């Protein structure tokens, strides 16, 4: 799906050169969930921006779905993004004047989808994100978690081939992070979307098929997880259903299975395995297989 060849990015600030990316080559398959982790300043955001064609590489190329995006001009890129890409931002980046519905419908509008149709699709997507009752709300009238769910709905509404997310949960508390992450997981599996996420919290990578660790602009480690965890749950000691975001107005698809623990769908099931997962974080491969067995 995504092919990166000898990618370099060098920033010049005055006379100083910063090698943000240094000869990176990798390949991501269709429907793969890839986490890019690393220390601050290691080049995660830079890599993501290159992959998404938001910035031109100094050298090397990025090919998505057979198309070399490094050679495209701005208009071709815009057309390509319309068709194939979706984005989730750390700071949500919703248009402040538009309602949740209009924000979600925005990418479809750029595609030229008629108003009625795109609003219907957007509404469905918002319902999946548990925001069926917040359709007419403006971003300023919503919490950060709710805004990010709108942002996610916006990224998924066009069912793109690839979605990029730069620290999508960076501004959220840990309880909201669980909900948001699980919402994302469910959608990428449903639609078979390639998902590339930057994070500096390794915890978040437990559900990924692939974890790429960067250091100083180079790939330090490239791990494939055979049996990733199906859902993300809270680290031990932080479980407290009273802190959950109750704004989900309806369950997405699944029924509540555990009435005592007010979590939704898979989270509800996986809460019981919190301990196992805790272990898995120390050793992701092993932990995940244990997690599977635990089920």
């Amino acid at each position: 799906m995504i092919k990166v060849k000898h990618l370099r990015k060098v920033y010049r600030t005055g006379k100083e050169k910063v090698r943000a990316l240094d000869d990176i080559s990798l390949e991501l398959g269709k429907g793969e969930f890839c986490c890019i982790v690393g220390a601050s300043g290691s080049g995660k955001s830079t890599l993501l921006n290159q992959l998404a064609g938001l910035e031109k590489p100094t050298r090397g190329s990025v090919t998505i779905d057979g198309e070399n995006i490094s050679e495209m001009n701005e208009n071709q890129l815009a057309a390509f993004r319309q068709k194939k890409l979706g984005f989730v931002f750390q700071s949500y980046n919703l248009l402040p004047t538009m309602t949740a519905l209009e924000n979600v419908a925005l990418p479809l509008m750029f595609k030229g989808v008629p108003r009625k149709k795109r609003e219907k699709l957007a509404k469905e997507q918002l319902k999946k994100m548990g925001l069926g009752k917040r359709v007419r709300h403006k971003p300023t009238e919503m919490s950060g978690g709710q805004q990010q769910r709108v942002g996610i709905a916006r990224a998924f509404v066009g069912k793109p081939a690839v979605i990029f997310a730069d620290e999508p949960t960076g501004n959220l508390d840990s309880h909201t992070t669980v909900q948001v992450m699980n919402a994302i997981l469910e959608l990428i599996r449903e639609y078979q979307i390639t998902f590339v996420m930057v994070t500096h919290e390794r915890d978040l990578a437990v559900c990924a098929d692939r974890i790429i660790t960067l250091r100083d602009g180079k790939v330090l480690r490239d791990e494939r997880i055979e049996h990733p965890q199906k859902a993300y749950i809270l680290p031990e000691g932080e479980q407290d259903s009273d802190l959950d975001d109750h704004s989900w107005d309806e369950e997405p698809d699944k029924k509540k299975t555990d009435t005592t623990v007010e979590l939704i769908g898979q989270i509800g099931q996986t809460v019981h395995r919190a301990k196992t997962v805790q272990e898995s974080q120390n050793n992701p491969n092993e932990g995940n297989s244990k997690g599977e067995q635990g089920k």
Partner: protein
Amino acid sequence: MKISDLLSLSFENLRRRKGRTILTIIGVVVGTCSIVVMVSLGIAMNVGFDEMISEWGDLTQIQVYNWTGNTEVPKLDDEMVKTLASIEHVKVATPLYRPQYLNGQLFAGKNDRYQAYAEILGIYPEAAQELEYQLVSGKYLTEASTSGKKLPVLVGQYTGYSFTDTKKRGDSAYRWQGQTDARGNPLDPFVDVEKDKIYFKTYKNEENDEQLSYELDVVGVMLEDYKKGYITSQGVLMDLDLIKKLEKEYMRANGIKDANYDKQGYSEIYVKVDDVDNVEQVEKAIKEYGYETYSMSSERENMQEQSRMIQLILGGLGAVSLFVAALSIANTMTMAIYERTREIGVMKVLGCKLGKIRQMFLLEAGMIGFVGGLVGIIVSYLLSFVLNYFGPMLQGAIMMLPMYGSKMSVIPLWLAALGLLFSTAIGVVSGIMPANRAVKISALEAIRHE
């Protein structure tokens, strides 16, 4: 992306910055208003001139004079009139001859009870029709009718009213148009020019001179038309040759001698041109013979030249304020772009093409121009109404105000349309630079900045 979406996006963007948008629109309103109203003053001047001129006379008629008797200028005799008549685009050329010597009066009724002093002019018989003297009844003069005993004439529509009753005194000796009796019934003139016998009788210079008397034969009654002159109202029009013959008979009967009588030319003739647009050309050709001319067209030309200058100055003044409005649109749009940098970045990342972003800003600027122009034109019509309503009063106080016709400000539809088009175009043009700036915004920088 659909046009309707683009429109609603742009509109929404303007709406959310209501205060600033309204201020900018007011600028455009003022600009449009000042141009439209200024130009409307000039147009009203033109309309006024035309009103004035068409009241004064016939636009396709040229008067040719030869007062001076300057020997270098050819005599304006019948031969010469024919020459002028043969100039291209000339329909007819004729003198309206006022006899120098012939002196007399019209009489009618028993024992010449009713008398009238009517102006009698000589014309080429076929020319009356060509000069567009309309008839209420009867027919035009013809060459043939010159023979015979009676004098064939055309009379004005109200020539009958020029007769007075010599048997009465004071008001009752007169009849006038629109006069009614005590019960409100209209009163006819003393003489019915078409039925009663009317005589033209000359005065005697000395007691033993012979008095000449001729009976008139009214062949037609002309429609009163101020543009053609008093003759159509209460005058008498007669074959030119006939009137000269009368004059000679009169001279003989009263012992008047003038050796040059047959040699002199006319001092004034009328030339009728086929179209207003050809008047200038014909007039020029006539002037080349050395004659002086006068026409409403040349008068009109002068006036329009004047008003064109005034319109230009006024329009220029208006244009300055629209230019200021354009600057304020550009400023508003630039501000909007700074504020919306992040939004523009997000749109780009979500796949909005550059062209659409440009169009969005141009549309916004164009909308400001359009709405400003529309409101400006509505306000202009109101102002125009107020000016026309209060103009006459104001004019007394301020002599400066130009007002020639019945109106002070006239806004034709084309001016309104042009004003709207112009203001919209100004809006779009002032949006170009800001729009290009928006297009250049780097998506990455924009979404990065907090």
